[in-house]
């Protein structure tokens, strides 16, 4: 067990110039292995693992010191030592690297394709981009052995209007023995599209990675660009971005609370919550011109300033929700039939949550107190008062309650922002460095922490951009959450996670 600090380990590598705000270090296979050991020992948390031609990047965070860093391992022969071999959260990321880049994780326990279902016109689209060879063999699901087990394939097309994903249940009657997910149906080649895109196009693409987190993704992208180009944006832009991010969080938390209850056939809650969500979306449209605030956050600032009547609209929105929301919480808490469904359903072990570095409501409902707004304190959250709600019950009920608490926090944040909103311009032109530069950002979306890493060419176009959705570390835990539950409780567990298909499949 190593006791070295992350700083000490990475000091042995070669830091890369022009990578901001955190260091990126080119490491040797020995340092890489030390990092893997540290991840496996839960000393550090895996934030992301992605590849480029001939290099793999590993983003890690040291929980104790809060230090964040990227380690890059050159792999000219197309092979790198597997992280997933010792640290399971990296397995799907490695399979994705193998699919997209053709880089092979040596010693990986699972070498099945992940995003590539054999239906693309090319193999390794971000790497050699060769034509696919022979037709791919059928995807082998993990074996489950035992008496009177039967399989239930669900999806990729579901009965409701949701995104596609395949869930393979192995059940004994109603009790689930194993759930295996298969995702990748909505792969759109976002990373390929981002390659070579101008910043304007890239910002639009980033805002469309996952429609429900459009502000969060645009914010992460913009912050990464600003970090790379060393651009300081005006204070008002920071505050307006936070305002948009909180509106987005508020809208989707309200929608989620209703949708979870609706999955227990308690449509009353959905009806009320849908009204709240609609009010928020209309206020967003009135203030910033788009219901979901798409393309409102741009590199260098925000696209639209808050109109003169904006503060009044938002204040009356907050007052309205403050009045309408508490009775709904009481309704949720007092409906015994609903509590019977949510309490103790879909429990995730806190140890797993720690191991996966799972963020968002799933992580915080399971005792992992990580919120990028607090942990990194990016502006303006360093000047705002808010609490990071934390629960330890880690079940569907806990995740509903965490959202309820976050709704209250977001309402308070919106009020604070409205009161303290500084005046001034809402955007600046980006610095043109005239040389390649790299930037990175980690921000808190409504679903969890979103990581964006990018490298810009000297002409300001995007050379490579990797957005990492919080769902990467939440989807695998859903497989664990359903263990020991019954098949019929899966919709509740799934909705309480509300993982992103689009953000995950890219």
């Amino acid at each position: 067990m190593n006791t070295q600090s992350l700083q000490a380990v990475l000091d042995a590598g070669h830091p890369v110039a022009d990578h901001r705000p955190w260091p990126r270090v080119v490491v040797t296979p020995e340092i890489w292995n030390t990092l893997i050991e540290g991840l496996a020992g839960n000393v550090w948390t895996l934030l992301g693992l992605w590849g480029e031609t001939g290099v793999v990047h590993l983003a890690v965070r040291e929980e104790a010191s809060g230090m964040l860093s990227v380690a890059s391992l050159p792999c000219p022969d197309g092979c790198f030592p597997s992280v997933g071999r010792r640290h399971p959260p990296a397995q799907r990321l490695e399979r994705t690297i193998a699919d997209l880049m053709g880089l092979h994780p040596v010693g990986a326990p699972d070498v099945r394709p992940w995003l590539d279902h054999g239906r693309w016109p090319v193999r390794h689209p971000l790497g050699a981009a060769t034509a696919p060879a022979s037709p791919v063999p059928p995807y082998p699901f993990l074996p489950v052995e035992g008496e009177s087990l039967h399989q239930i394939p669900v999806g990729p097309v579901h009965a409701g209007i949701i995104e596609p994903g395949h869930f393979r249940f192995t059940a004994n009657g109603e009790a689930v023995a194993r759930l295996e997910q298969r995702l990748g149906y909505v792969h759109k080649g976002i990373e390929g599209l981002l390659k070579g895109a101008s910043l304007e196009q890239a910002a639009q693409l980033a805002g469309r990675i996952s429609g429900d987190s459009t502000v969060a993704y645009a914010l992460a992208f913009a912050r990464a660009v600003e970090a790379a180009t060393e651009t300081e944006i005006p204070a008002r832009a920071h505050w307006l971005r936070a305002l948009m991010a909180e509106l987005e969080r508020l809208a989707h938390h309200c929608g989620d609370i209703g949708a979870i209850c609706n999955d227990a056939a308690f449509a009353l809650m959905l009806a009320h919550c849908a009204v709240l969500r609609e009010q928020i979306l209309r206020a967003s449209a009135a203030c910033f011109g788009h219901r979901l605030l798409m393309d409102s956050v741009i590199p260098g600032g925000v696209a639209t300033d808050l109109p003169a009547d904006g503060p009044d609209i938002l204040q009356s929105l907050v007052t309205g929700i403050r009045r309408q929301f508490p009775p709904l919480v009481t309704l949720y808490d007092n409906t015994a039939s609903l509590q019977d469904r949510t309490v103790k359903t879909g429990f995730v072990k806190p140890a797993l949550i720690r191991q996966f570095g799972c963020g968002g409501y799933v992580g915080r409902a399971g005792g992992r107190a990580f919120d990028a707004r607090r942990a990194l304190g990016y502006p303006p959250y360093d000047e705002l008062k808010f609490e990071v709600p934390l629960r330890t019950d880690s079940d569907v009920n806990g995740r509903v309650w965490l959202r309820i608490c976050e709704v209250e926090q977001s309402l308070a944040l919106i009020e604070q922002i409205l009161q303290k909103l500084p005046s001034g311009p809402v955007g600046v032109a980006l610095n043109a460095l005239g040389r390649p530069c790299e930037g990175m950002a980690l921000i808190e979306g409504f679903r969890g922490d979103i990581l964006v890493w990018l490298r810009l060419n000297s002409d300001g176009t995007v050379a490579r951009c990797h957005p990492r959705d919080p769902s990467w570390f939440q989807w695998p835990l859903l497989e664990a959450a359903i263990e020991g539950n019954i098949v019929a409780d899966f919709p509740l567990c799934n909705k309480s996670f509300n993982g992103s298909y689009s953000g995950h499949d890219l």
Partner: protein
Amino acid sequence: MALITDYLVQGGQMLLILLLAPLLTGWIRTLKAQLLRRRGPSPLQPYRDLLKLLRKDVVLADSASWLFRVAPYLIFAAIWVAAALVPTFASGLPFNWAADLIAIVALLGTARFFLALAGLDTGTSFGGIGASREMMIASLAEPAMLMIVFTLSLLAGTTELSAVARFMLNADVGLRVSLALALLALVMVAIAENARVPVDNPATHLELTMVHEAMVLEYSGRHLALIELAASLKLLLYLSLLGCIFAPWGMTTAGEDLTAYLTGVAAYLAKLGLGGFLLALFETRIAKMRVFRVDQFLGMALMLGLLGALLLFVSRSL
């Protein structure tokens, strides 16, 4: 002449329930939507849906056998006959001698048997899940239903519904604990049998929690139309049953004049409307229960029925 009129009235009743069944379903859906502050579809929507389905082609799974094709007709026939036997607006009609509670339970059981078989027939996992859950519910609901039948037959001295209704109309029945228990038990059985919240969700979008919808997932076109109509008829049947046994007021007897019949029909419609409203209200206020809670729910219905029957024995021996 009287015989012909009686048969005409009987035929009229059979047609009436067939025509009313989709309206009842539509009425409940509209009410539920309005309780959720939605506008909701017109109560006539189920008729349009049925017409649409009847005009559509049937898509059959490759693995479907003859049983799959025959089952909708059997199910529909069994449930229609069962529903026609329940006295609605008039008692003492020609077929009422057959309107035996046990016969009705048996007809419904037959329909369910074929529905579960059809669910299993295509070999899909959802059909299997639905059939297994349906059988679990049935194995608990049927004993409870029989307990209710015993209670009633002990009281009224017959299992013939027409006679039960006439017995209940007698003023000297009074308030009885056994009847209250039987009513509660019958309501619970009705909720479970008709795949309503909290046992099943009729408006389900969740493939994994469905019971009834899971079994009929592979049906399309006219087959689906028949099954949907049969489901509506079954709901109507249970509401009629509740009305006939526990609220027979306004029910006329065969051989009366036209005004009496019209009053009977009006009273029947009012009962259905009220029953639908109460059902919609109940469903809006409650979440669906865990699948493994259904046995407790129906176990309670069984216990209530049993308690009702026992109380009668005890009170008789006193």
